[in-house]
């Protein structure tokens, strides 16, 4: 004698919701690691150390008297990063451009402190835009690099006009590089203009460093 029981079907929607949640969690972790995969954790740490508040800027200004070689240290850091990046091509474009700008900003800031020129606002804007290069790598990175480069150049121009009149040509070279940059284009398509800007910026800072009082007093 047969017996067949029936039962109410279990609703499917909790499973659908669970699958959607799992997919969302996977996507969340994937997207949060996306920048790390492109740039590595090192650049995140660097971002934290370079992004400074006004108080920190003030502290840095006073630190000059404790470490008069701060500018040269930053210049060396910037120079080393540029030359290392040429050797290590595996670095992604966003990693390189962001960190190169941040190191240039830091070197410029030290030079401004050394020469007692107020370029705080320029470098703050440059900082903000440089930090966005990673966060917005697909959309407006070209614009942000150009904006940061423009602000840095403006800051360097203020320093140059006040202390290094003979370096006018170097400032012009930077301005030409910025003119060559196109904020609407992807950074991969204008690598040469950006690299040229960094080479000229390094050249300018090195020449400024030759006349830096800190160099003379602290060989």
């Amino acid at each position: 004698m047969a017996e067949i029981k029936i039962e109410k079907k279990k609703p499917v929607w909790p499973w659908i919701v669970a699958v959607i949640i799992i997919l969302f969690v996977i996507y969340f972790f994937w997207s949060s690691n996306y920048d790390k995969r492109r740039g590595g954790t090192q650049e995140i740490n660097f971002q934290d150390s370079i992004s400074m508040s006004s108080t920190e800027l003030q502290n840095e200004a006073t630190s000059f008297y404790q470490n008069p070689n701060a500018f040269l240290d930053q210049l060396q850091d910037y120079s080393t990063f540029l030359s290392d990046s040429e050797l290590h091509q595996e670095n992604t474009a966003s990693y390189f451009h962001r960190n190169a700008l941040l190191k240039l900003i830091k070197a410029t800031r030290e030079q401004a402190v050394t020469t007692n020129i107020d370029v705080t606002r320029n470098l703050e804007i440059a900082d903000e835009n440089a930090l966005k290069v990673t966060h917005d790598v697909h959309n407006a990175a070209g614009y942000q690099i150009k904006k940061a480069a423009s602000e840095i150049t403006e800051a360097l121009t203020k320093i140059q006009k006040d202390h290094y009149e003979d370096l006018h040509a170097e400032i012009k070279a930077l301005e030409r590089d910025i003119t060559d940059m196109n904020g609407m284009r992807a950074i991969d398509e204008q690598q040469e203009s950006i690299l040229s800007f960094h080479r000229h910026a390094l050249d300018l800072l090195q020449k400024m460093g030759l006349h830096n009082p800190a160099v003379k007093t602290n060989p």
Partner: protein
Amino acid sequence: MKSSENHLHRLEDLKDYQVAPDNTDIRNWNVIDVDDRVIGTVDSLLVDLVTKRVVYVDVEVDDSIISANHDPDSSPGELKEFNNKAGDTHIIIPIGMMDIDLSRHRVRALGLNHRSFSDAPRYDRNYSFESRV
């Protein structure tokens, strides 16, 4: 009497119900009589929602059953308890009279032979089964 009143429903009409996982869905399985003759196929399961069990099996009978019951020599005035009409191809069998053969995927009707089926009252699938039940 409406099916909702006697709690009897075709399982396929109940979208929220299914055969319990540890039970066998015998729909489309062959139905055989005590002599191992195929007498039809399980078309539907009639279930009681109160007891949550299959109560009857709706069998679509084989052509041999229909033709066996057709008696062209019977006189028009002969009294019969019922008259199967053309299109009456379904039989309702209590689940208690069935035995499930899991290995051969078929259902055996206990104590019923070919003649029992050919003599049984049938109904049209397109009409209500409840009058038969």
